[in-house]
């Protein structure tokens, strides 16, 4: 089950600050709901875990994150993550490319993720996987912005210490709702999760779709 997710969002912070954050997997990992970085293996390799619960299915991936490419000049990073569920329910891998651009005020981050899920979760189909990814992304973005603004702030849905799985019922329901009702509700779901933030998320497609507030 290969899913490609392209996202573009803006943050009210200078490019250097955003880049410094984005190029540190420990910091980024802390913003991913349900995820934690448990160990740094070498300069570019980390061990980590992520729990994803969709409906009745809990998947507890453990694996490695590796920085494949880090271009300080272009502010571009490529990360490869691979994990297997600890109880053998499947595996997932993700190749993510992130790039920070300077804007007149603030920065714009573009990310392209190629997610490959094998196992029970993948049976949910690309529609659900995409929607779950969207919901997770909104939570991530929320955390990301908070952390950028005040690095010591507590992170909402996750913490590096306990790494709770992302909200089971919430994610499943909003993902399913979004899948069934497509646009409007999908945006509602995003709005629910992103409402605490000042700048609206800017999904890549459609470009003009800036979500509710």
């Amino acid at each position: 089950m290969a899913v490609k997710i392209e996202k573009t969002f803006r943050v009210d912070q200078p490019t250097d600050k955003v880049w410094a954050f984005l190029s540190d997997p420990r910091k980024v990992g802390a913003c991913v709901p349900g995820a934690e970085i448990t160990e740094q293996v070498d300069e570019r390799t980390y061990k980590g875990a992520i729990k994803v619960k969709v409906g009745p299915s809990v998947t507890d991936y453990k694996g490695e994150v590796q920085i494949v490419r880090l271009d300080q000049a272009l502010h571009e990073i490529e990360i490869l993550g691979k994990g297997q569920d600890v109880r053998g329910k499947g595996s997932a891998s993700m190749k993510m490319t992130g790039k920070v651009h300077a804007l007149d005020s603030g920065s714009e981050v573009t990310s392209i993720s190629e997610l490959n899920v094998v196992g029970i979760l993948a049976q949910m189909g690309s529609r659900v996987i995409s929607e779950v990814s969207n919901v997770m992304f909104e939570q991530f973005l929320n955390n990301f912005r908070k952390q950028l603004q005040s690095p010591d702030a507590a992170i909402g849905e996750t913490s590096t210490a306990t790494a709770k799985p992302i909200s089971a019922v919430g994610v499943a329901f909003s993902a399913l709702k979004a899948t069934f009702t497509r646009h409007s509700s999908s945006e509602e779901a995003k709005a629910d999760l992103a409402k605490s933030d000042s700048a609206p998320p800017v999904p890549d497609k459609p470009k003009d779709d800036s979500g509710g507030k």
Partner: protein
Amino acid sequence: MQKTSAEISGMGHSMKRKEDSRFIQGKGNYVDDVNLPGMVYGHMVRSPYAHARLKSINTDAAKKVPGVLAIITGEDLAKANLAWMPTLSNDKQMVLATGKVLFQAQEVAFVVAEDRYAAADAAELVEVEYEELPVLVDPHKAMDADAPLLREDRTEKNNHIFHWEVGDKAATDKAFKEAAVVSKVNALSPRCHPAPLETCGCVADFNKATEKLTVWLTSQAPHVHRTVFALVGGIPEQNIRIISPDIGGGFGNKVPVYPGYVCAVVASLTLGLPVKWIETRSENLQSTGFARDYHMTAEIAADKEGKVKALRVKTLADHGAFNAAAQPTKFPAGLFSICTGSYEFPQSFCEVDGVYTNKAPGGIAYRCSFRVTEAAYLIERAMDVLADDLKMDPVELRKKNFVPAAKFPYKSPLGWTYDSGDYHAAMKLALDTIGYDALLKEQAEKRKKGELMGIGISSFTEIVGAGPAHTFDILGIKMFDSAEIRIHPTGKAICRMGTKSQGQGHETTYAQIVAQELGIPAKDVQVEEGDTDTAPYGLGTYASRSTPTSGAATAMAARKIKEKARKIAAFLLEVSEQDLEWEPGKFFVKGAPSKAKTIQEIAFAAYTNIPPGLEAGLEAVDYYDPPNLTFPFGTYIAVVDIDKGTGEIKVRRFVAVDDCGNIINPMIVEGQIHGGLTEGFAIAFMQEIGYDESGNVQGGTFMDYLIPTAVETPHWETGKTTTPSPHHPFGAKGIGESPNVGSPAAFVNAVVDALSHLGVKHIDMPITPWKVWNILKEKGITG
């Protein structure tokens, strides 16, 4: 055939179904309704991977769940030599995985607990370590040199299961060389699933004191399953009792033996407790017998006037990880060689190659007599492509090539002898009913306005009722079937058959056959099936075989009883047997109709006033070996309108003219046709068990595998012609499968016809609005 009174309700009466009173009151008794004292529950741990090495299984955490009694793994079964079991197609299949897994949702471990919840919770905690292996999803790549080897257990180190061919290759190739016109179509009959209302399951109860194993089983073929359990498990066959209670639909899905059954039996033997195992919906869709997955190419050689000269068919059959197809031993591709259909092909050659892939095992016949749906779909599609190539009306092309009624029995170039048929008559009735000429005019006008409307024809021929013992067997057991009739002293009867109804209405139709033959009112005839301790041996219900085999056996057993009844009547009336005449329900003396004895009086005498020299009682058994198969046929016409903006297809009209020979119960036949057409509609437009490139099932829930409801289902118009089978005791042929076999081609032909002026020659099923919308977009019809 003399029609009986409504009181007797023999053949031809639309008697209400006797079984329905319990079904509509919710009083059916299905496997999951069986609850025994001390019963425990099984739950399956399944593989998330399509292809992976099994490195370890850790059950420590699972065993700690309160209520867990046992966890069985493949290694445990291997110790008892039960890790593998034979399939119905001379292959073997893993019961629980050892070494590696070969498809997603494959059975890996079986957890037994005191209740279902504990079993399911513990199954979640079984930790299995896998090492992923390269996955083979595309059957077209199965025979590539670099394809991963799936079945390491086989001596042949490749993914090829079988090559099968029939027909005269040289003569067919020669006909193609000399042909003026050659048409070709590549048509996929996609992987689909019968998805019966009731999923599969069982309750296995081994009584340690009596050493008797009783298994309530969702089985279409209980006797065959008993024999398989005896052979595989080494349990003496008299100590095994299989009971198929009410079955909530089978459609071929309940013919194979599944790992869950074996695990439940092993658990019951081990624990000495009754063990229930019932699949979830997703388990049913993902792991049990799928249907179709035939990747077919048909070529027709014809002259310029459209007279066909030869048919050449090449097919790749995807059987998944194990060849668990349920079909007669000598027919690895089932009865696919019926692919010349209703047409008089002088030559034909057909070849099929079966391959393994990392998908669920099977290849069962979904409401079809072993690959007949694939064959009918292919030839009906190919005829339309030829008509399009020749710019001929598809109706004219069909009529020109039909086997004429005068040529029956007709011997096809692929070796079948069609019993009877009148294809022109069925076609004419269908055309008249739908108003074909007016529709053609309407279509021409709509095209001018840019509107999309299509008419699709399918004039299929089926082959059902397997089958004659000289050709047909399953695991060596000949495909006869049986009936036993016992008349009670008060003139009521009980009958038992080797078949098993899953909703077909056998309790009514078999009773009507007895009523027809003996004049005992059908309401007084009790029909029982599915208990191997009481019913005579039989091969079960699938392939539209119940009426051709057990139905025939019922008539033959009734006729044996009638002969004895005649002797008793002659004794009672003090005349010779030759002086007696029969009318439904009684024998009377020729020329003196008032001197008569009813069948009820005769039955009473059989127990109370037995003629000297005659045995007491009135009963008979018949094992019927049909001399040939039967060949139902029909013409279906679909009319569709396509929304240019959305690609949505609306089936505006659908006329189904069927000919299944003499009819036992017209209402039940009508019901069968409605059900089969609805399934055919779903197959054409909605259903596919797809896999992604990693072997993840993409049709494993009802969210992705769609079931038509009353909202989507079109209105069906039915009609009939009657061409009795000349060799069947009462001229019947079988109807259950015709609508599923014949309809997909009518739907697809209609959609392709609606788009043919845009250069569209073929669209593979399922034809979703998304597929059509993309075509419209590509053709510049929609924005």
